[in-house]
């Protein structure tokens, strides 16, 4: 349950400037609503498809937070996603991570975030490789073995490197202030 609160807080804080959004909800309410939905069996949880924690985070909490965003932001998200489809000629979202919202739609400067991350991973060979694998190549963070093979990294070095990388991400996203939503 602690992880759910952390997830909801991290997402909520990146999307809203205020502690309570225009629907009168705080990050805690989204966790409580998710628990209630699950206990009332209104969340259509299928244990065969995903672990419960993942389901509650991505299918219930994230979806609810995104659904409650102001209409203008959702419209902007749709337009961004469509234009991206046209540009890349690819499906922008993985089926396994539903309700994804472009951070650009809520006022994040994408280029600036990337610049910050790039600067912080510079001069660390393992972090640089992970960054290239995930951002420039088609790998995901979970593709440990594949990244190790493709970038010739020892698995134990990868494990240490990804820890440093995650700390970098935490610092960058924590520091970034959003421009868009007042709640």
């Amino acid at each position: 349950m602690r992880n759910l609160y952390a997830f909801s807080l991290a997402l909520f804080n990146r999307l809203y400037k205020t502690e309570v959004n225009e629907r009168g909800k705080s990050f805690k309410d989204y966790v409580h609503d998710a628990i209630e939905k699950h206990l009332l069996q209104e969340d259509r949880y299928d244990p065969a498809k995903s672990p419960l924690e993942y389901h509650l985070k991505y299918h219930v909490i994230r979806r609810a937070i995104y659904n409650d965003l102001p209409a203008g932001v959702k419209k902007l998200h749709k337009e961004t996603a469509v234009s991206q489809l046209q540009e890349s000629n690819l499906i922008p979202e993985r089926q396994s991570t539903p309700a994804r919202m472009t951070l650009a739609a809520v006022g994040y400067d994408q280029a600036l975030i990337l610049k910050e991350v790039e600067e912080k991973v510079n001069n660390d060979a393992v972090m640089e490789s992970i960054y290239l694998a995930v951002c420039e190549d088609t790998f995901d963070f979970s593709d440990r073995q594949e990244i190790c093979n493709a970038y010739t990294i020892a698995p134990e070095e990868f494990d240490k490197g990804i820890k440093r990388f995650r700390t970098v991400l935490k610092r960058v996203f924590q520091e970034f202030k959003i421009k868009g939503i007042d709640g």
Partner: protein
Amino acid sequence: MGSGYNKVDKLFDEYLNFVSSNEESESFLKENGFDPDELVNEGIKRARQIQMQLASQKTEKHYAELKASLLQRAKEHVEKLLSDVSFNLENFIKQENINMAFKNFEEQNEKEIRDILERHFLLKFENELKEKGK
């Protein structure tokens, strides 16, 4: 912007996974000024409230179903009784010790008699069930 969307989105997903992991969530909540134990207690309290509400709804449903089933049994019993040509209401009331507010049965129509008997058997079956449950 197109490629930037994917990259930052991926990085943000990883950030979310990291701060909400078993290893990191406690310190993340503390760093943001929240007491993790207090939050978890709040969540557990909320979950218990919902579970109690669900249990109470289940019990109510169970009793409603039970009552409907007993009433059906009572109706069938009365039907059988009234279709018996040898049935005598006055004797039956005495025999079953049914407390009647008025004694003039002949003035009552069949529906009224049926209602009285159904209520009587419903109570009787409910009491039998209670006795069994003791």
